[in-house]
Every structure is written in C-alpha cells, then in structure tokens.
C-alpha cells in the first residue's frame, strides 16, 4: 500500500493542478488576512471559504483522479498486489496531496501574520484540522462514486450532486424542517441531521471551539446546550472520522468485486 501511496502522491503533487490549488489558497488567504487585518476575523472568514471550497475541490479532484488513472489501475492490478492495497494507497495519495497544498497555501500566510506566537493558534489549528478532514471525506466520497460509475458524466454529476446536496440543499431542507416543526422540540432532530452532514459537522466543530456564541448559529447552540463544548467537540470530531471509516469499508468491498 505504501508504494502505491508514494507514487500517487508524487504523481499528483507534481501536477499543475496541485500548484494551482496551492496558489489559489495562498492568494485568497493573504487577501483575507490583509483585508480583515486581524487574526480572529480572518479565521472566521477562512472558515467559510474552507467549508465551501475544500469539499468542492476534493470532489472534483477525486473523480478526475480516478477516471484519469483507470488504465493505470488495470496495469497495476495485473501485478502481484492486493486490490485493497492499491485502492487505499491511491486514495491516500490523493487526499494527502490535496491536504499538503491546502496546508501550505493557508498555513504560510497565517504563519507570516504571526499566528504561531498568538493566542489564536489553537483556533487556527482546529480550522486546519476541519479542512483536512473535509478534504479526506469528500475526496473519498467522490473517488468511490467515480469507481462505481464507468460513465464519467454520470460519475461526475453524482459526485458533484453529493457536494451540492451537502453544502447547499441540505441546509435548505434543514431549515424547512425546523420551520415545519416549529412548535415541537427540534433539538434531537437538529443534532441527528447535523451528524449526517460532514460540512455542518465541521462548522459546528469550529464554532464550539471558537466559543463565540454569537456566531454559533442554531445547531452550534444546540450542540453546546446538549453536550457542552468539550463533548460537542469530541462527538463532532469522532463523527467526522466515521465519515472516513465507513465509506472506506464500502470502497474496499466494492473494489474487490469490480471488473477492470
């Protein structure tokens, strides 16, 4: 597995797209830092950028990478190697190379602005952690979807739909449900719905950590009320990990019975 990882990783990290992704984050992070002029505000603005863009870019990369490496898969799967090792290695190469671009692109400007010595360091690290997990989750989902659909248009469409659903449609439905059941206690429902959306989970996690109740929003406040900050953080981060572990299980199961 490690060998496949190594090759996928270097294949991707050298590609122009990784560089574009890195430069994009460098520019946008520097701009946000420059305009907001203070670290707290910048962290919150960056949170919105990250919650929106990392899932999208990871989705696009995941599907593109799988489709572009189909024949490579055929070549390597004909070698003495387990299917599981191949696909997990490739997935790790993909997600880690994306993460490296992200960490450098966002990290460098913040370090330049002195985040390391400041009291905001832990907030910043949580932001990076959530970005990292979302990158892992969405590249995994789209990699898996792309593996399932031979047809690129369908695979791409479906992967993008998952992203759109999680980042836009879900919140709309969420809101409607809350309005419909206005007269009932909706806290439990709100918590469950949040657990099923990694982007919302990421947001809640950051909010709980920043402890700025004004910004927490409804779900953040519910989490806070139910679990308290610490347990809320634990539960949301554990669930984010489940969002990686469970799809990995399905990915491996599907890869083992697929024809190449």
């Amino acid at each position, binding site marked *: 597995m490690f060998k496949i990882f190594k090759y996928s990783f270097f294949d991707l990290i050298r590609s122009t797209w990784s560089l574009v992704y890195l430069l994009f984050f460098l520019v946008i992070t520097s701009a946000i830092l420059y305009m907001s002029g203070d670290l707290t505000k910048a962290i919150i603005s960056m949170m919105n950028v990250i919650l929106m863009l990392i899932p999208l870019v990871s989705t696009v990369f995941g599907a593109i990478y799988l489709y*572009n490496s189909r*024949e*490579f898969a055929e070549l390597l*799967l004909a070698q*003495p190697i387990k299917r599981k090792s191949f696909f997990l290695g490739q997935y790790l190469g993909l997600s880690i190379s994306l993460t490296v671009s992200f960490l450098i692109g966002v990290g460098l400007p913040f370090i330049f602005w002195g985040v390391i010595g400041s009291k905001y360091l832990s907030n910043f690290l949580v932001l990076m952690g959530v970005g990292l997990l979302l990158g892992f989750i969405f590249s995994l989902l789209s990699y898996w979807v792309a593996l399932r659909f031979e047809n690129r248009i369908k695979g791409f469409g479906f992967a993008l739909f998952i992203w759109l659903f999680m980042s836009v449609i879900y919140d709309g439905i969420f809101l409607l449900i809350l309005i419909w059941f206005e007269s009932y206690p909706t806290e439990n429902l709100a918590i469950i719905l949040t657990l099923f959306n990694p982007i919302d989970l990421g947001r809640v996690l950051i909010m709980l950590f920043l402890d700025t109740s004004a910004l927490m929003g409804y779900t953040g406040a519910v989490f806070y009320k139910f679990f308290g900050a610490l347990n809320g953080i634990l539960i949301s981060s554990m669930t984010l990990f489940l969002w990686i572990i469970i799809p990995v299980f399905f990915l491996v199961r599907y890869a083992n019975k697929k*024809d190449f």
Partner: protein
Amino acid sequence: MIEILNLQKSYGKNLILKDISLSLERGRIISILGPNGSGKTTLIKSILGLVVPQIGDIRFDGESILGKWEYRKKIAYLPQIARFPENLKIKELLNLIKDIREQNADDNYLIQFFGLEKEMNKALRNLSGGTRQKVNMLIAFMFDSPVIILDEPTVGLDPVAITRLKELLEREKDKDKLILFTTHIMSLVEEISDEIIFLLEGEIYFKGSVEELNQLNGSGNLEKAITNLMEKRNV
C-alpha cells in the same frame, strides 16, 4: 499450468463467456483468436483476476486463483490498451513496476533491444503510439515470468519492432514458458503459434494447430480459413 474450468462471465445481462474449459501447458505459444467482441480480452482478464467470473474456476499450478494475488508474481501481462500515469517518465514507470514486483528485471537489455534509450526521460504523455506500445512490452518482458500473456502486442509497432517481438517470443518459449497472446494478424499466428484457440460467441469454436485449422476448412491460407470460420457461423 493454467486450467480453466467451466468458466462463465457476463457483464450485466450480456453473457460473454459461456462455459469455457481449457488447459494451458508450458513450452507453447498459444494464440487466442476470434472476432472483435468475442471475449478474448475478457478471458485473459479473468486469468489475471482483473475480471471476476460468475461461475467456474481458474487454477494456477493446481490452486484456485479467485481472490488471490500471489500467483500474479508468475505472470507477465501486456494489456490491449496502454495508457499510463501521464506525468511519469518511462524510467519512473519502470521503477514503479519493479518496486511493486520486487523481482529481478532485465530492463537495460530490453531498452536497447527496442531502441528506447533516448526516450527514457520523456514523460509518458509525450510518447508516440508505437513507443507507448514498446514501453508496454518492456513491462511485460522485463521479468523472467513463467507465463506471458499479451493482448494484441503488435498494435502500433513498426516492422522492426514486430520482428523483435517475434524473436523475443521464440526465445521465451524455448525457456519452457507458457505464452498466450491475441492478435488479428494471421501471418503472425501462422509463423509463431503452436496452438490456436478460436473463440466465437463466448464458446471455444476451434482448438488445435494451424495445420488442423487449414485442413478443416480446406484452404491453404489461414486468413481465409478464419474468415470462413467466422462467416459460416454468421449464416
């Protein structure tokens, strides 16, 4: 060496291989023939474990291969379509395969043999079609594998390279290897193969030597014999 027992494979509702049984032995060059879409690639991929059959078994040295991977240490494979990770250089691709197989590779000799010295530092995306096919061949032949499986090895090759390929095949055969290949070039079959397996509509329609096939169809020419075979079936 390889035994195929009542193999059946369908993609969705399309039954591609219907009850194929075969026994393939060392020291022979065996060609798998058949019209486009007759299931040659599917059969080869089943042997490699790339395609998972619904019914039947494949045994390699007496052991079932289903779900296994170690047996592939003994198989070299040239896929019909050679596309590679585009960013890699040939050298890096070779290193990758060597790294994965962890076997001794005779690549330097083959690089010279196919005249690829000057291409080694080119990225794969910049290679000509024939050069890609040579790289594909390099990967298949650089290990000393007892079984060599080639899916249309001649596609895109110039006459010099084809001659080289034939030389290689003869040489490997003399090392008591099993060589299995598909092609649509009948002169190549006539020249090098000891045995023909002719697939038609998912079944083995003919199995035997070139001479036997010619006799069966009463023509002195393999190309004609094969064409007759395909057309008779269509009527």
